[in-house]
């Protein structure tokens, strides 16, 4: 039962991380990011007590809220609302390749990481892979920030299996919030050009 739940969570992570790459509407990006942190919370529960795992989901949701609130105050960019983003097929194929790599690499990583659990390793690798792919196909500040947060979320899932320090949990939460704040700052700065040109 629990194992099935974990694999269901991995499936949700696959859906959200691929979705983050495909959608252009920032509202959907933020919603998918928030769902991703929910999935991360359940995977982190496999190794951490609920109190510490909750730090991750709260920090993640706060980060998503920071990004969303900043983006909502900026002028809408035409490209952001594009329902059918260009290169969607390419991204889907690339995401499929990442999923294949994760499928073959997860058992190896599971063995390497002190038996973290196959579902935990797979979920973690999936987020890391999709985050890296996301960074490779975009240079927009919001997308780059979400890509970095996805990679760190994947890493955090894996790291819960080997490290249970409160200091690390706190610092990783600070890093997540810091990334969201840095992303928001850069988004506002980017909008300076748009405001100038309009």
């Amino acid at each position, binding site marked *: 039962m629990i194992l099935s739940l974990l694999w269901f969570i991995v499936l949700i992570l696959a859906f959200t991380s691929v979705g983050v790459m495909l959608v252009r509407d920032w509202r959907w990006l933020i919603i998918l990011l928030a769902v991703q942190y929910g999935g991360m919370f359940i995977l982190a529960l496999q190794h951490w007590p609920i109190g510490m795992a909750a730090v991750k989901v709260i920090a993640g949701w706060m980060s998503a809220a920071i990004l969303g609130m900043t983006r909502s105050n900026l002028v809408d960019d035409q490209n952001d609302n594009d329902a059918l983003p260009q290169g969607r097929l390419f991204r889907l194929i690339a995401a499929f390749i990442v999923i294949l790599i994760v499928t073959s690499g997860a058992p190896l990583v599971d063995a390497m990481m002190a038996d973290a659990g196959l579902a935990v390793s797979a979920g973690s690798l999936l987020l890391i892979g999709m985050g890296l792919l996301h960074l490779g196909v975009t240079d927009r500040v919001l997308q780059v920030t979400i890509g970095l947060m996805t990679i760190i979320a994947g*890493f955090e899932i894996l*790291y819960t299996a080997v490290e249970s320090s409160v200091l690390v949990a706190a*610092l990783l939460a600070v890093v997540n919030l810091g990334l969201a704040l840095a992303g928001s700052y850069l988004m506002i*700065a980017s909008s300076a050009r748009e405001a100038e040109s309009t």
Partner: protein
Amino acid sequence: MNAPTIWIILPAVIAVLLMLINNQRALSLIGGGTAILLAIFAQFVPIEEAFRLNTLSFKIESSMNVLGRSLLIQPEEGTLLALIYGSAALWFFGAEASRTSQKIVPIGLLITAFMVAAIAVEPFLFAALFIEVAVLLAIPMLTSIYKPPGKGIIRFLIYQTLAMPFLLLSGWLLAGVESSPGNLALAAQSASILGLGFAFLFAIFPLYNWIPMLLEEAPPFIVGFLLWLLPTITVIFGAGFIDRYSWLRTSPQLATALQLAGIIMIVTGGLWAAFQRHIGRIMAYGSVAETGLSLLALSLDLRLGIPILFLLLPARALTLVVWSFSLTLLKDRSETLRFSSVRGMLRTSPFASIGLVIASLSTSGFPLLAGFPSRLALWDSLARVSLVTALWMGVGIVGMFIASFRTLAVLSMADEYSSWDVSENLLQGIMLGLGVIGIFVLGLFPQTVQYFLSDLPGMFEHLGR
């Protein structure tokens, strides 16, 4: 009272308070004064020993517990703290003259405090988290909220952030290798992950493309500060890894990898600099080559390499502060830092031009200048290990020399009848003059810094002994 409170929490609190001040001069003086006081305190007040001041007697504890882990500043690290805060003071005092005080002083002091925390945290591999926080703090310092960020800043954020997971994971894997040294597959995996982490953090070829981009987009004085602080702390963090794990310390493959990475950095940095037409990008590649020198020093027999590594640090700090300050002044007076824009500026900005050329020559290893003693020692030691590598180091240095002389030629290429018109103010002239004198003093009398540097290897358990 404990050492982490004095050298981490206190400067962090002062930095936050400084954010409330708008006056450039007050910021520069308070920030610089704080850094100098912290440096003097670090050098002369012993840690974990009773210290008597008239009738008062007090003792500074070395550690502080934070969330179940500890921040530990060992007595041997006092000199390193003095070097870090002393060098930071150079930037803070120069900030007013370069009109960057409002950003570099408060945020720079906060970043410095986090970097000191990175050195102090136990277990030491958690340093990667503190470095990442410092990188995130650097974002508002590098770019204005009123100006769109360039690609350099985005790449800086991406590359430096990617380093953190690799380093944290490698730290855990390395502990596994330590407990089962026969597991070669695990050793190879952990070494690869460690290498990737440091490649991102050190900006090793080809991951350094954000440095020249950043110098085109952001204020040179602020970028110079980061190009000094980040590699300096990273190299100490990296040396800590080598010190901690005996299998890593004795691995011949590590020495080869460091040597290869270092020489590629020097050669590409030198050659790319030689072909640049932008004086900011020349500084970027100079800094890349300088990082390569640090890696080469780490690749040598560590009894020899560690003293050379520490000899590189003060020269790097002083050279970069003069170089970035000069660039800032030239940028204020020309449209861009391209050769076509700064042509003939020796006549209008003589102090900045001279500072720029001297700093550039010092990085090239020109005799009598600050960079010369460390490069000579490194070159000599390297030639004993591998003549071919020493030859390649020479190629990189020649590249840097070409860049320096091209810069000198462009800056002095004024129209025949243009008159001398000094545009720098007195404060800027004095700051640059002192910096250039400092570069000559470090070059002519390298033994002056030996007083500080001789104790530094003591901070490691195994290295440099």
